[in-house]
């Protein structure tokens, strides 16, 4: 059994549970005298009633592992209303007829448990230095009302060792908050309704503590996720100075039914002390949603993942307190001792029945209850991840996270730093992503990836500290965060409900799918991407529509990047090589409306600089030269909606099947699900002072062209400069550049292009139509013999319909630039007017 050094200063104890139990004896806790009536219950059948008033203050509770300690400092338990008030509880204890001990517990007021600082220490009882790095503070407000029954006998049944717990409780009036440097991010109006019947606790051979929860059911709700930048506020819903409600990100709701199995044993990954955990959990049901400006019924809208099932399990997850691996090696990147969490394997599978956008809580509740209420769904998703040691780019990768104190150095001494290493493997296609739309499925197959770098987490307020700009909100920072992912291609077929069937379907070359990466500024959805990420994304409260929502400010850069916009199975592709991407977002706001997820982009500017656009191999492939794209927009909007293109007429015109086919077109019904992204973009005129503009530069013939390090700026450049949108008058810009993008999975007409056998040996005549068999093989059928069922069985493909409109796209100039000859103007003006272009393109596997 692991030995833990225990530090106890004014009553500090080793573990939190023990601390709670002992607070009455070591601090200002108060036991109320039992009155005569209650005392009479002790000897009678009605049991014992205990009224407890607690006010505890503990300087430090520390956990030591092989000589290094994690200290919880400033631990308090009291009433939420005031630190000087007692938290009051009533416990009623009974012994039931079967010998079980029944405990009913009720809070008589809202209690608060808080930790002011979480630090790493070398010795028990060190006097805290206020400016020393800290992981920040936590607080929990709660009222509890519940009951637990404890019986002898664990998982083996009555008469065996161990115990069985039947527990039901509800936590109300809750707050759960994280505080750094005087700023708070917290769940307000939180409730947690739990039923965990038949929970057993055993000590297995080898001293393994074994917890089984075969019936864990819970509903979790948060009425408002709030932010405060006023240091005087602590655990309050309204600002103490203005009296106004603190700004909110919106509401959260989660509903789950799980089977939990957790084993804990002594000894970590390093030294002789620490913890090792193994767990296998079945998710029988999971629904989760985020809403804003909502009354939790018919007013306000939500996005959600509903009707999910799956599992999460991990093997040999170890917990140790360790020094930074950079200690003594790279002092500048040594952020001190941290809590090290590592694991041999973690698998996660989650099948979501419906992803809804812009639904009311009333409809979501009805859907969860009956599974039949129509909802605005883009379809289903299946996410499958296997994290374990592996190779990526020929480098050994592992899974280990070191939680360190301090966060971003400039933000203040409180914050969280995660020195992160992740390895996502897929030797037998265990990791993949599946999207299901109207019974058709798309698998991004054999997903692999890695991450290696630092993530920082701080709650920050707007201002400049030590030359770094901060914004209101929860700041997620990236420091030298190397990352990469790739998938082998897409497998598209009719959905059988079993992902294993998809794995044996034909592989289609991977291509960037815009609809699957709406939140990542284009940095996902491509078949392969790697690079080094630096910068931050700060999530602030408040939106553009109503009071609640999310406001995003971000400054991100990807350096030394490599992205495939098209990639074949053997790794050859169309590569953006030597990619450097610098993007800035100001006051981008997310809201949920009845249409879906609405994104208002206050101001954004970016530079995408690609050293080489390569064909074939990512390193040695021939290059088209350099491409640099600068973008500058203000007031652009984007709405992500449920539902795709619906019914369409390809190659003709007509609002019905008869009219369409009469015009020579092909009528297609792409169902009710799918994804639509509508955007309105306003391209701004150059701002020389701030270095913002719209410009496209293509450069070839550079010094060292074709080699590993061509010199940018030394070749011939073709420059499309300072292009903007306007309403055709060169003055106003209300219409902008409008795009409706519809993504569906649908049957595709594949026509055989030559007589004879194709690359898979399947024989057909030129002009025949490809028809899929149930087992994933296919045949060719002549158009004259095509049946209605054959049409249903055409190969499934990715159907993208895009409509782009603008009144005027105005290029200020098109220049040719020579490194020694200078700049000459090729075109003194280029104006594109009155465009309304629709493209409808379906892609599927080639033979």
């Amino acid at each position, binding site marked *: 059994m692991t030995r833990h050094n225990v530090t106890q200063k004014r009553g500090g104890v080793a573990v939190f549970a023990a601390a709670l139990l002992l607070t009455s004896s070591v601090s200002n806790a108060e036991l109320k005298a039992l009155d005569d009536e209650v005392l009479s219950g002790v000897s009678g059948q009605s049991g014992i009633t205990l009224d407890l008033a607690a006010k505890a203050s503990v300087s430090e509770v520390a956990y030591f592992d092989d000589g290094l300690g994690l200290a919880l400092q400033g631990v308090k338990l009291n009433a939420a209303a005031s630190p000087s008030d007692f938290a009051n509880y009533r416990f009623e204890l009974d012994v039931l007829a079967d010998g079980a001990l029944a405990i009913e517990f009720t809070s008589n007021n809202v209690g608060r448990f808080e930790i002011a600082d979480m630090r790493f220490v070398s010795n028990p009882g060190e006097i805290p230095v206020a400016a020393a790095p800290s992981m920040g503070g936590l607080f929990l407000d709660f009222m509890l009302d519940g009951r637990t029954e404890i019986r002898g006998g664990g998982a083996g049944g009555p008469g065996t060792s161990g115990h069985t717990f039947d527990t039901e409780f509800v936590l109300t009036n809750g707050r759960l908050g994280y505080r750094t440097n005087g700023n708070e991010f917290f769940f307000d109006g939180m409730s947690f309704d739990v039923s965990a019947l038949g929970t057993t606790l055993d000590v297995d051979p080898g001293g393994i503590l074994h917890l089984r929860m075969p019936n864990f059911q819970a509903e979790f709700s948060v009425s408002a996720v709030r932010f405060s930048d006023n240091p005087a506020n602590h655990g309050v819903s309204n600002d103490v100075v203005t009296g106004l409600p603190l700004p909110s990100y919106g509401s959260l709701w989660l509903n789950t039914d799980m089977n939990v199995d957790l084993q804990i044993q002594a000894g970590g990954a390093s030294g002789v002390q620490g913890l090792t955990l193994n767990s296998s959990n079945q998710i029988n049901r999971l629904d989760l949603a985020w809403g804003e400006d909502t009354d939790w019924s018919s007013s306000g809208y939500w996005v959600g993942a509903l009707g999910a099932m799956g599992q999460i399990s991990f093997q040999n997850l170890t917990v140790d307190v360790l020094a930074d691996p950079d200690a003594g090696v790279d002092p500048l990147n040594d952020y001190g001792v941290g809590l090290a969490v590592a694991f041999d394997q973690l698998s996660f599978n989650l099948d979501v029945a419906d992803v809804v956008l812009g639904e009311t809580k009333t409809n979501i509740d009805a859907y969860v209850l009956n599974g039949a209420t129509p909802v605005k769904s883009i379809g289903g998703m299946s996410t499958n991840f296997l994290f374990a040691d592996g190779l990526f780019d020929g480098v050994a990768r592992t899974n280990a996270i070191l939680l360190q104190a301090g966060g971003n150095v400039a933000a203040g001494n409180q914050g969280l730093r995660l020195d992160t290493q992740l390895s996502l493997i897929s030797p037998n296609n265990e990791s993949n992503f599946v999207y299901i739309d109207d019974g058709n499925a798309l698998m991004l197959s054999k997903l692999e990836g890695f991450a290696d770098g630092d993530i920082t987490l701080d709650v920050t307020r707007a201002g400049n500290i030590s030359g770094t700009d901060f914004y209101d909100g929860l700041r997620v920072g990236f420091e030298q965060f190397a990352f990469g992912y790739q998938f082998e291609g897409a497998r598209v077929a009719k959905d059988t409900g079993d992902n294993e069937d998809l794995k044996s379907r034909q592989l289609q070359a991977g291509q960037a799918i815009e609809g699957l990466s709406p939140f990542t500024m284009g940095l996902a959805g491509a078949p392969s991407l790697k690079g080094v990420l630096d910068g931050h994304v700060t999530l602030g409260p408040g939106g553009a529509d109503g009071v609640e929502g999310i406001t995003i400010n971000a400054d991100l850069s990807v350096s030394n990047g490599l992205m495939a916009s098209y990639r074949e199975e053997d790794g050859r592709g169309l590569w953006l090589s030597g990619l450097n991407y610098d993007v800035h977002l100001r006051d981008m706001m997310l809201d949920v409306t009845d249409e879906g997820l609405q994104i208002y982009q206050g101001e954004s500017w970016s530079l995408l600089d690609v050293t080489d656009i390569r064909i074939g191999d990512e390193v040695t492939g021939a290059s088209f030269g350099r491409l640099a794209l600068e973008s500058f927009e203000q007031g652009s909007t984007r709405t992500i909606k449920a539902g795709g293109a619906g019914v369409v007429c390809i190659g003709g015109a007509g609002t019905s099947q008869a009219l369409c086919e009469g015009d020579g077109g092909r009528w297609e019904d792409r169902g009710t699900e799918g994804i639509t992204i509508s*955007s309105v973009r306003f391209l701004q005129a150059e701002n020389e002072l701030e270095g913002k503009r719209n410009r*496209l530069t293509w450069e070839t013939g550079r010094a060292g062209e074709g080699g590993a390090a061509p010199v940018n700026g030394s070749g011939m450049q073709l420059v499309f400069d300072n292009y903007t949108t306007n309403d*055709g008058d060169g003055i106003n810009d209300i219409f902008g550049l409008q795009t409706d993008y519809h993504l569906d999975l649908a049957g595709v007409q594949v026509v055989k292009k030559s007589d004879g056998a194709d690359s898979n040996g399947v024989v057909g005549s030129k002009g025949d139509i490809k028809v899929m068999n149930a087992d994933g093989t296919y045949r060719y059928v002549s158009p004259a013999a095509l049946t209605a069922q054959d049409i249903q069985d055409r190969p499934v493909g990715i159907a993208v319909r895009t409509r782009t409109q603008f009144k005027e796209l105005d290029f200020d100039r098109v220049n040719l630039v020579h490194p020694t000859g200078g700049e000459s103007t090729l075109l003194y003006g280029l104006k594109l007017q009155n465009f309304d272009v629709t493209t409808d393109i379906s892609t*599927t596997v080639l033979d």
Partner: protein
Amino acid sequence: MRYCTRFAIALAVLSWSVYVNAEMERISDNALSEVTGQSGVYLTGEVSINENGGPLDNSYFGDCASAGKICGARIAAQTQQDGGWFVLDNLKGTIAFEGLTLQLRNISSGFGGDGALFNRDVIEIGMPSSLRFKDFEYTLATSSNARPGEAGFQQVDLMTVELGGEVTLEGNLLVFPTP
């Protein structure tokens, strides 16, 4: 970024004909059988420009039912400072295609010996077996102003091209990167 990248790639594609050695070739069945791997993609669909007119509604542009108005798109380019404008006007119509293929191909032989010297991958665009033009048309013109309706606007239409019907294309377009 994705929109921008697509736009950039589109422009690059438009420019290939000028800056890149593209070549059409007919591949025999025998040669086809030597193409290793079929992991490319098969595309089918349509591109429609101003099928029902564009977003501008003024004295010059309108919907396609408005008599005396243009409902197509317009591209105007000025090659001399303060000079006139070359115009591609009233661009509209639909192109539908079936069987456009896209994949990479290694070129290591042929092409009069240049293939062995090149010995790299190229983009192979397989021509669609069916290409259908519907009411496709444009007008070449010269104009005094980029924007119709501006003071002193004058335009001379040089020629109008109209395309309709089905075209069968065979062979592949190979795109060679030569920066």
